[in-house]
């Protein structure tokens, strides 16, 4: 069925079981890394050099990126993503009251705390055996739809956008800039830019119209977020069983007002990123190779149907399929599964190239999930976090990030993965604005202040690269906003029916027996899970897998590089330069930044004539 590498098969009823006759089913052989080719190149070619830099002093990020580029050949020989910071959240949470987790895990990041709070609450609901009343579910859905109106535009216009701006392109690709001045846009009536040069000038960092608007347009969703949930980005109102916020007609109206105001902006964004993508493709089809990698993606789904979600693991396959964002795994462009049980079963974390001890010697406590599906020792419910600081060694250990894999294959996470799984699944519940067609997501967007009602459609792309990641993210802004819109209307309906309860009223106590739970959710950057185990009323294990953990992962024991590393190594150097002194590495930055938020690159360049070293930094979300 869906697993090619794990020792799992399915019976005629679709129940998973370990393959028969395999003595040590989850055993694997670590493949030694072979750097001999790179070392040979380094030894014999003066224009290829390998220099390692730690994150540079004035940058506070938690992850650096190192690559060796041959400027004569225009290719990247080797790439390494290095998590430089150990946060230890998973260690801190052990032994605590589980209700601490939604507050503690929320502080892992300076912008996306709300998603961790909710994910943690979902895990606890499963462990405690409680659900959420419909209004509570609706309020959670609105919260995260608002959250993404802050995260995604900040990335598109403030972080990624400058890579396509006049000041950058004029320097890195002068001929492209000349064409931009002569190229008329396709939809000036939608966004107001007559030429591509006008549009790219609006992306100029700190001064461009789109940059400043991107900053300004985080205000309406933040205002709504603060009104509904108390504060952004670390809400105190998210709890297992729902939320503690007070919902009134007034706050719902204020939220709706801000959503409709943002809709107008989101519509324009779709046209802007369509224009940008097509312009670059038309200029040079090789731009389709920038940041390309296999079409292998994962998403845990999010935005529950408030009448379907029951908080149980047994029901996860059903309520997962009822989400507005369908969970799923895509391999080679094909949707393999939407079943949360399958997604969970296939998940493993490896630490062979990370600064952690293995834990296999201790055995593993959970050979199956609560539904009886087989799990291996590297599954998050069995994994332990055992830090082991070490010297950096490219063949051995070089990062604090782990290597999560699904079915032992490299998958990437992102808002775009959510778009892809939802589009391919065709399972989205009926709603007023969105339709999943099997190949696309159609969005029926109401009339807004400056733009008419329109139908927009994100189609699963033929090629997968940096431009498509950004384009999908622009559609994701609109998509998530429409999910929020739908849920505000549902909240009005519920209020009209007197269904005002926002948190469970089922009496419960913290269980004293052994329990497990998992939160399947999503961040603005994509896939998010929190796995917990508890006993005697306290947490015995807590494991967080973030989108950055997937994307920034190092080489796994099977010799497969992580998504950032793979995308950079596949990137052609299309920048125009005459010597190493002129080289900025813009193609590499576009590749890395397209993965989004937790991977904003800060440029640190030590370039000689033909040698380039890049250090990129990220936030600590992907760190343990």
């Amino acid at each position, binding site marked *: 069925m869906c697993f090619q590498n794990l020792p799992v098969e399915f019976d005629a009823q679709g129940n998973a079981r370990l393959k028969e006759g395999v003595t040590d089913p989850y055993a694997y052989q670590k493949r030694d890394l072979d750097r001999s080719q790179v070392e040979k190149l380094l030894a014999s070619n003066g224009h290829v050099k390998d220099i390692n830099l730690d994150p540079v002093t*004035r*940058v*506070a*990020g*938690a992850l650096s990126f190192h690559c060796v580029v041959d400027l004569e050949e225009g290719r990247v020989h080797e790439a390494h993503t290095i998590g430089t910071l*150990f*946060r*230890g*959240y998973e*260690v*801190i949470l052990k032994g605590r009251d589980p209700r601490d987790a939604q507050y*503690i895990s929320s*502080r892992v*990041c*300076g*912008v*996306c*705390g709300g998603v961790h709070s909710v994910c943690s609450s979902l895990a606890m609901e499963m462990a405690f055996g409680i659900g959420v009343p419909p209004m509570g579910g609706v309020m959670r859905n609105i919260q995260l739809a608002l959250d993404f109106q*802050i995260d995604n535009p*900040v*990335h598109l216009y*403030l*972080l990624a956008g*400058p890579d396509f701006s006049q000041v950058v392109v004029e320097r890195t690709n002068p001929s492209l800039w000349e064409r931009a001045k002569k190229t008329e846009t396709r939809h000036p009536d939608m966004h107001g830019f007559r030429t591509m040069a006008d549009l790219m000038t609006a992306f100029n*960092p*700190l*001064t461009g119209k789109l940059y400043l608007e991107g*900053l300004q347009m*985080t*205000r309406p969703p*933040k205002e709504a977020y603060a009104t509904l949930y108390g504060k*952004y*980005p*670390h809400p105190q109102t998210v709890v297992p069983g729902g939320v503690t916020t007070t919902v009134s007609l007034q706050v719902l109206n204020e939220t709706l007002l801000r959503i409709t105001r943002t809709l107008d902006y989101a519509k324009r964004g779709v046209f802007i990123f369509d224009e940008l993508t097509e312009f670059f493709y038309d200029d040079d089809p090789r731009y389709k190779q920038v940041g390309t990698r296999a079409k292998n993606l994962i998403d845990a789904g999010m935005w529950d149907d408030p009448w379907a979600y029951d908080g149980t693991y047994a029901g996860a396959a059903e309520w997962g399929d009822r989400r507005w964002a369908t969970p799923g795994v895509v391999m080679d462009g094909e949707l393999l599964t939407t079943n949360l049980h399958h997604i969970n079963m296939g998940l493993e974390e490896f630490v062979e190239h990370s600064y952690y001890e293995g834990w296999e010697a201790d055995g593993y406590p959970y050979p199956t999930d609560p539904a009886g599906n087989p799990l291996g020792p590297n599954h998050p419910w069995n994994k332990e976090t055992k830090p082991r600081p070490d010297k950096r060694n490219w063949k051995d250990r070089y990062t604090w990030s782990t290597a999560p894999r699904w079915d032992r294959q490299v998958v990437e996470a992102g808002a775009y993965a959510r778009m892809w799984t939802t589009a391919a699944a065709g399972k989205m519940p009926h709603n007023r604005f969105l339709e999943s067609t099997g190949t696309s997501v159609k969005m029926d967007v109401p009339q807004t202040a400056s733009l008419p009602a329109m139908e927009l459609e994100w189609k699963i792309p033929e090629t997968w690269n940096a431009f498509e990641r950004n384009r999908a993210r622009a559609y994701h802004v609109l998509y998530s906003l429409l999910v929020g819109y739908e849920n505000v209307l549902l909240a009005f309906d519920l209020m009209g029916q007197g269904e005002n309860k926002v948190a469970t009223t089922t009496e419960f106590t913290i269980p004293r027996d052994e329990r497990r739970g998992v939160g399947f959710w999503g961040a603005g950057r994509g896939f998010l899970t929190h796995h917990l185990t508890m006993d005697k009323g306290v947490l015995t294990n807590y494991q967080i897998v973030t989108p950055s953990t997937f994307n920034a992962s190092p080489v796994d024991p099977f010799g497969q590089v992580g998504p950032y590393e793979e995308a950079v190594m596949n990137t052609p150097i299309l920048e125009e330069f005459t010597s190493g002194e002129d080289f900025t590495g813009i193609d590499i930055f576009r590749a890395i930044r397209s993965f989004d*938020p*937790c*991977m*904003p*690159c*800060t*440029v640190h360049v030590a370039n000689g004539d033909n040698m380039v070293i890049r250090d990129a*930094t*990220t*936030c*600590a*979300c992907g760190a343990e």
Partner: protein
Amino acid sequence: MMPTVVEGTLPGRVLVGGVGYRWFGDASFALLVSDALTDGAWPVEVDVLDLGYGALHVAMDLRDAKPAYERVILLAVTERGRAPGRLYRFDCPPGTPQLQDVQDRMYEAGAGVIDLDHLLIIGRHFDALPDDVVAVELEPHGGTTGDRLSTSAQALLPDAVELVRREVLAPARSRVRI
């Protein structure tokens, strides 16, 4: 650890803010100091806030403050190569940061990195900070993690609280903005 009641003439609205991550060993010192200060009895002109989130958003929130803050005292933990395990106090004078420096900081702050220098540079660029900004920093011993402070950092908490109290009370250092 309650700071004593503040008396005296304040320059106007004053903000005391802790910058940093929580549950991160000594790197969380600043937030724990601001937590301790929150318990104090302050005049209405003084706000003590947890600024442990992205500088981009902090800067926007500060710019929106009405009336504007006339003095900002920021608490942080930063490795600057000074003697570790000590508190440092320094003025953060007004100025216009280089645009490239601002954008470099935006890359990280927009993605959730929390850092005093990010806040100072982004805050200055967006005119979110008054002229009168003071930082009180701990130079940490490296490598502490976990949910508790080291013994030496814990011992500095009362000193930091007192240092901030004095900064709040200090006479106006610059022209009050209108």
